[in-house]
């Protein structure tokens, strides 16, 4: 039964990917599969990606740096959600080359991730950073205020260096829904995303909704099925938020013009 549900959900995502119209001028963003219907991004409609947008306009190529937990590539059906994002964007925007640089290290605290982001910014010259942050800090009992300030200063550093950033929020697991420290970390990440005006993918809320909709009462919380579907939905929300921010909501401005060196 679980396998059937998973296949059905993957099918929905595949259909969504296939249905997306490949056009740069007016991209048709595929509908979110019904199981991923929970709003996935914090204030996604209001957030733009100026640096990413400029890269799309001038180079037809974007470099995405993924920092946070490691993900399994090309094996699990829904394991590598970054590759789903890559495929989604490439199929949505014709001719766009999405270069995905994965530098995830599981268990890495925000303070170490922040150091590595700076180095990887130099190594890979990304246009956008997907930063999966908060879970490891919460598990290790780091003070949420400390993590929040590290994330804030890193976001500002990235913006100063003309790199957009997307925060991917904490994981969901039913056991931690009442854990005050975990929830405090979740609130800290949400707050910094809001105050810095960056997109936060609401991984926790997506997982929570999926869990409520899908998990039979007696099924163990350790089911990998939930994680797989959650990753698929995450990819869906992330890709849609980027597409929306890039084209549907972006107002024309200086950043639409190519930089002086490209003229």
């Amino acid at each position, binding site marked *: 039964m679980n396998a059937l549900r998973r296949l059905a959900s993957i099918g929905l995502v595949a259909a969504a990917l296939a249905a997306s119209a490949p056009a740069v001028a007016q991209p048709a963003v595929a509908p979110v599969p019904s199981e991923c219907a929970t709003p996935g991004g914090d204030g996604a409609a209001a957030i733009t990606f100026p640096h990413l947008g400029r890269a799309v306009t001038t180079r037809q190529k974007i470099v995405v740096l993924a920092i946070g*937990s*490691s*993900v*399994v*590539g*090309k*094996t*699990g059906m829904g*394991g*590598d959600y970054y590759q789903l994002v890559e495929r989604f964007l490439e199929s949505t925007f014709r001719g766009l080359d999405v270069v995905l640089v*994965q*530098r*995830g*290290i*599981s*268990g*890495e*605290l925000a303070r170490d991730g922040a150091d590595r982001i*700076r*180095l990887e*910014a*130099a*190594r890979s010259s990304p246009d956008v950073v997907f930063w999966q942050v908060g*879970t*490891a*800090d919460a*598990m*290790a*009992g*780091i003070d949420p205020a400390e993590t929040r300030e590290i994330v804030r200063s890193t976001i500002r550093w990235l913006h100063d*260096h003309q790199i957009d950033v997307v925060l991917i929020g904490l*994981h969901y*697991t*039913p*056991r*931690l829904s009442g854990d005050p*420290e975990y929830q405090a970390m979740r609130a800290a990440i949400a707050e910094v995303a809001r105050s810095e005006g960056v997109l936060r993918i609401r991984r926790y809320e997506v997982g929570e909704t999926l869990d409520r909709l899908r998990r039979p009462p007696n099924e*163990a*919380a*350790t*089911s*990998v099925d939930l*994680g*797989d579907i959650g990753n698929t939905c995450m990819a869906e929300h992330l890709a849609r938020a980027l597409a929306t921010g890039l084209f549907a909501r972006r107002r024309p401005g200086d950043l639409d013009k190519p930089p002086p060196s490209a003229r």
Partner: protein
Amino acid sequence: MPRSANAVDFWRGFALVEIFVNHIPGNVWEALTHKTLSQSDSAELFVFLAGWSLKHVVGPPEDPRPTARLILRLFLRAGKLYAAHMVIVMAAIALLAIGSRVLDNPLMLEWFNASAVFTAPVEAHIGLVLLTYQLGYFDILPLYVVLLFASPFIALLHRHRPALLLPISAAIWFAALVGEITFATWPTEGEWFFDPLCWQFDFVLGFLFARSTGPGGLVRRHLAAIRWVALPIVLFAGWARWAGWEIDPTAAPEPHLLFVNDKSFLTPTRIGHFLLLAALASALWEPLARHLPVAARALSLLGRNSLLVFCIGSLLSLAAQILRFAMRGGMVFDTLVVVCGLGILFAAAAVADWWERPE
């Protein structure tokens, strides 16, 4: 009969204690390890001393170990280490699985990069055997295994062309830095946390500096002068670390890795700082042994049983992380965990020593 306390075992024991404490991230004692005021940490020391120990396997210049025996001994040593790594990784996976079940929290698995064992078991097990798949905080032994498998070539090159070892090692390190060449992980996407192509340089330096001829002899002859040069640099580096001052990697000239501090690639900042710090710290052994003989003997006890202590310490630090999460401990809990963990490590080392004594 266990060997008596000495500087190499003492510093190896020191590194083991720090690795144990640092592998419980977020605990209050972490701030007291030397990385807080340093551009390098105990990993450089541990690998450097591994290279230093190679000298004892190779044998003295006047009585070198026969080549066939040397090669066999080194490969057997690498195999032993590989087996030890496999055992502790399997134990760690079981520990995480138990933690996940008992605490009803699947995030335990993802936290330490173990989820692929359960979501992609076929690929994960191949990766574990090939060392391309590494659990979080279980990533230094794969480096050590690679270095030990390379050690016969290092030893033979040094035996037949001693002048070539340092330039070849430095050239590989430099090329890896400039080209950003490293080992990929699989099935998880990413890179090895410790790039063997870079870290072999630390290992080779340890081997060369252990000897009284060649670069080791040169350093010994000028050690006093080196320490005078090292002192202000190490003090400045400590201040920079404390103040959070560092070079913006994007502002550094190309190739960036030559000018920034990065642990994975063992950048020049890190290895240079470590060597200067080692030159200074090497002066401490004699006064420590004289005035604090108990501490000198205790850390030497850990150091001469380093593989056992490292393996047990790795599992204990993992258990401590799970316990910290489960108990949400503060300073008292952290202190209890660190004291108990170190107590177990010393007890294990003492038992190993006792086992080695003649009846």
